C-alpha cells in the first residue's frame, strides 16, 4: 500500500483529496500546515507528498527545503498543488526540487493519474 501525505490548510480541499486517494487504496496522512507536515515526516516516510504553497506558519517552499535535507525522504516524490499559477511561481517550485507542479483549481482525476505516474 502506497503512502501519501496531503499538506493544505483548506479543509474542504483536503477532504476531497483524502476521500479520493483512500478510494484508490493509498494510506493517507493529513497536515494543515508545513510544521505539522514536518512533524508527521519525522516518523513516517510516504511515497508521495502533495504540498500547498501558501499556508500559515511554515509555507510549502520552506517545507520542501526541509524535506530535501532529510535522507530518509530521498525517494519521496513531491507534488506542489497551488493556486499560485504564474510562470515564475512554477519555476521556483521546480527549482526547489519538486517533481511536479499542479495548479488549483485542479481535476482530481488528473492529480490521481499524476501521482500514479510518478510512483511507477
Amino acid at each position, binding site marked *: 500500500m502506497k503512502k501519501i501525505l496531503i499538506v493544505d490548510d483548506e479543509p474542504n480541499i483536503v477532504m476531497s483529496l483524502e476521500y479520493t486517494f483512500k478510494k484508490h487504496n493509498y494510506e493517507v496522512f493529513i497536515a494543515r500546515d508545513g510544521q505539522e507536515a514536518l512533524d508527521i515526516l519525522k516518523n513516517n516516510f510516504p511515497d508521495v507528498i502533495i504540498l500547498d504553497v501558501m499556508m500559515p506558519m511554515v509555507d510549502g517552499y520552506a517545507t520542501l527545503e526541509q524535506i530535501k535535507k532529510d535522507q530518509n525522504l530521498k525517494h519521496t516524490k513531491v507534488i506542489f498543488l497551488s*493556486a499560485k499559477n504564474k510562470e515564475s511561481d512554477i519555476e521556483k517550485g521546480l527549482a526547489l526540487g519538486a517533481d511536479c507542479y499542479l495548479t488549483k*483549481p485542479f481535476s482530481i482525476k488528473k492529480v490521481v493519474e499524476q501521482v500514479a505516474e510518478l510512483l511507477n
Partner: protein
Amino acid sequence: MNSIVLLLILSVYLAVLFFIAHWAEKKENGKWSNNPYIYSLSLAVYCTAWTYYGSIGVAADNGLSYLPIYLGPIIIAPSWILILKKIIRISRVNKISSIADFISLRYGNSRFLGAIVTVICLSGIIPYIALQLKAISETFHVVTKTATSSNILDDTTTYVAVALALFASYYGTRYVDASEKRKGIVTAVAMESILKLVFFVIIGIYVTYFVFDGFNDIYEKASLLKNFKEKNTIGGLPQAINWFLLCVLSMFAIFLLPRQFHVSVIENNRENHINTAVWLFPLYLLIFNIFVYPIAWGGNILFAGKEVNSDAYSLLIPQLFNNKTLTVLVFLGGFSAAISMIVVSSIGLSTMITNNVLIPYNLIGKLKGSDQTISSRKILNSRKIGIFSLIILSYFIYRFFGLDYSLVSIGLVAFVIIAQLGPAFFGALFWRRGSRLGAVYSIIVGFIICIYTLLIPYSIGITNSESTFISNGLFGFHLLKPFQLFGLDYLQPVPHALFWSLLFNVITYFSVSVSFKGNYRERNYAEMFVDISKYITNHENAFIWKGTAYRNDIEKVLVRFLGEERTNRAMNIFNVKYNIDINQELADARLIKFSENLLTGHIGTASARILISSVVKEEKISLPEVLKILEESKENIIINKKLTETSNELKEITAKLQNANLSLMVKDKQKDEFLDTITHELRTPITAIRAASEILHDDDEIPEELKKQFLQNIISESDRLNRLIDKILDLEKFETGKQTINATKSNLIETIENSMEPLKQLIKNKGVTIYLESKSKVNAYYDEDRIFQVMTNLLANSIKFCPEKEGVIIIKVEDIEDYIQTSVHDNGKGINDNDHEAIFEKFYQSVNQNIKKPVGSGLGLAICKQIIEYHKGKIWVQPSVKGACVVFTLPKNKNLEN
C-alpha cells in the same frame, strides 16, 4: 637679397595668412577659432613691430628702460579675472562694439563723448599705424640693402599697405553688427603671434648660441663696452619713478588701446577664456623678452663704433654672417607684428568712426529713410571705406612726415594719448557718480596737456624749427617748460607727460563729476555698469524709462536696420523672455532697451538711442526718481534671489517627485501583488467546489453521509466566494469614492450590540466573554450600516485571535471632546509593534510576508479604515497594551463631518 625675391616671399606669406583667415571664417563653430589659446594669442597683437625691433633698440641704447612696457601688462594681467570679465559682460549685454561705444553708453548714450573718444583714438593710433608701415619699409630696405625711393610706385610698402587695406576691409566687415565676432581675423592674428614669437626666439638663440657662446659670453664682452653699467642699473629714485610711470602707462594701454579692447573684449567668445589668457599672455611676453637683451648687446658688441640703427640689430646680425634664411624669417616675424597691429587697429578705429561719428552726426538722417538692405550696405561700405582710408592715411603720414623719432617714442606717445581715456573708463566700471561732463572735461584737459607736453615739442623736433618753446617755456615762463612743467625736472618726457596729464585728468573727472551731477540716464547706466553681475541675465529690467511708445513704431525702425526676419525673431525672443502678450500695443522700458541693444551693434549706442527716441515719447525723470526706482530694482534683485531660492525649492520638489514616483512604482508593485492575492483568494474556494463536484459527478458509490458533506462544502465555499466578492467591491467603492455615507445621529451602543448578533454562534463556540463598558446611550453621527460592518469586523478578528475558552474582549465607548472613541481590546497574542499601521493595508499579511496566508479575506481592516475615514474619524492600534486593542473615533455632531 633681391627685392623681387623678397617681394615674392612676402606675397606668398600674405596669401597664407589670407587663407588662414578665410578658412577660419568658413568653419562654423570651429574648435580651432573658438578656443582659449587662440584668444590668448590674439592678445599678443600688443607686441607690434615696435616690440619686435624697437625694444632691441631701446635695450641697446638706453638699457633697461624697455622693460616697463612689458612689466605693466604682466603685473596687471591677474586682475583681468575681475576687471576684464566685468568689461566683457557689460559689452556683451549692451552689444558694445568699441571703446568709444563703451564710454559713450555709460555716460548716457552721449554722442559727443563717443566722438571725442574716437578723435583721441585716431590721433594716437594713426601715427602709430604709420610707424608700423615705416617699420615694414625700413626693414625691407635693410634686408634688400636698397635705399629708400622717393617714387611711391617703387616703394614696396605701398603695395603692402594696399593689400592690408583690402584684407582688413574685407574680413573686418563681414557683419553689419560690429559686435559680431570676426573669427578669420582673430585666427590670423593668433597665427601671426605664434610666428613672430617663434622667429624672434630663433634669432635670439642664433645670436646667443651660434654667434656668441651663451649669455655669459655676451655679458662678459658687453661689460667691457662703455656706459654698460649706467644703462643697466635703474639709477636711483628719479629713474625708479620714471620706471614706475612707464609701468602704469602700459597697464592703461593693455586695457585702453583700441586694438587691445577689440581683441580682448569684442572678440571674446567665452568669459572663461580669460582664465587661460591670465597666464598665457604674460608667459608670451616673458618669452619674448628673454632674448631682447642678448640681441641688443650682441649687436652693440658686433657693431661697436659703427653707425647703425640699433632697432635693426635682429636683421643686421644674421646679415653680417650672411645667413639669408634667418634674415628673411626675422623680417617676416616683424612683418607679422606690424600687419596684425595695422589690421586690428584699423578695424577698431573704423567701427568707431562710423558708429560713433559718421552715423550719429550725419548718416543717421539718411539711413532712417532707406530700407534694410540699403542701410546695411551703407553702413558696411562706410566701414570698408573707413578701414581702407585709415590705412592709406597712415601710409601718407609715413611717406610725407619723415617720422624721424624712433619706433619706441611714437608708440609711447600713442600710449599717453590713449591713457587719457583711463579715468573715464575705469570710473565707468567702479564709480556710480562719474558723470558725462566729468568724462568729457577730463579727456579734453588730459589731451590738452598731452599736446602741450608731448605733441607740440615733438612737432617742433620734427620740423626742426628754431623755437625756444622747449628750452624757455611758453612766453618765456620757466615753470611752463613743456618737458619740465611746474619745475618737475627729473622725469623723461613720456613719464612726465603722463604724470601731469593724468593728474589733471583725474582731478577734473572727480571734481566735475561731484559738482555737476549727471542726468538720470547716466545714473541708470552707472548702476548697470557697476553692478553688471546683478543684471547679467535680464539687464533690460534695470533700464529706467518713462513715456509712451508703440511696439509698432519701434518694430518699424528695427525692420529698417535688421530686416523683417531678424526683427521678428528678436521680438519673439523678447516676448518669451519677459512673458509678454503678442497683441500688446504699448512698449515698456525693457523693450526700449532691448531695441536699442539690437541697433547698437549696427550703428553704435548713441545712434541707437537717437533712432529709438525719434519714434517714442519720453518723459523726463528726475534724478531722485531714478534713485528711487533703482532702489526698487535692488529689491527686485532680492526677489530674484528669492526666485533662485524658489528654483532650489523646485529642485527639492523634483527630488520629492522622484521619490513619489518611486513610491508609485512600489504601489504599482503592491497593486500587482493585490491582484495576485485576490486571484489566489478567489481560486481557493473554486478549487474546493470543483473538487467536491468532480467527486459527486464521477463517483456513484459515494456514501450518502459523505455526499451530503461534499454538498455542504460546495454551499459554504460558494458563500465564501460571494463574501469575498462583496468585500472587494466594497473596498473598490471606497477607493474610487463611489461609496456614500448616510450619516445620522444614532445611539452607538445599540449599533454595537446589534453587531454582536451574527457572531453569537462563533462567540459561543470559542468560549469568548465580551464586556461592554459604557453608558447605555451614547449618541454619535454616523452611518449605522457601515459602523455595524466595522464592529463586526473588529469583533470577528478579536474572536479569531482569542485563546480557546479563556477569550475576553472589552469594548469601551468614551466621550472625548468632539468625538466618541470606541476601543475593542482582546486578550489574544496581540499585534506586532511594526505592524500597527500596516495591518490597515489591503491583504497586508499576505503582501508583507508574501507566503503567509491571510486570516480571513485580508480586506477587513482596510475596509474599516476607509469607513472610519469617510466619517472624518480615525482608527489606530493602541500601542503598549497586552493583547490587541483597536481604537476608532466618530464625530459627535454633523458639522465636524465637513
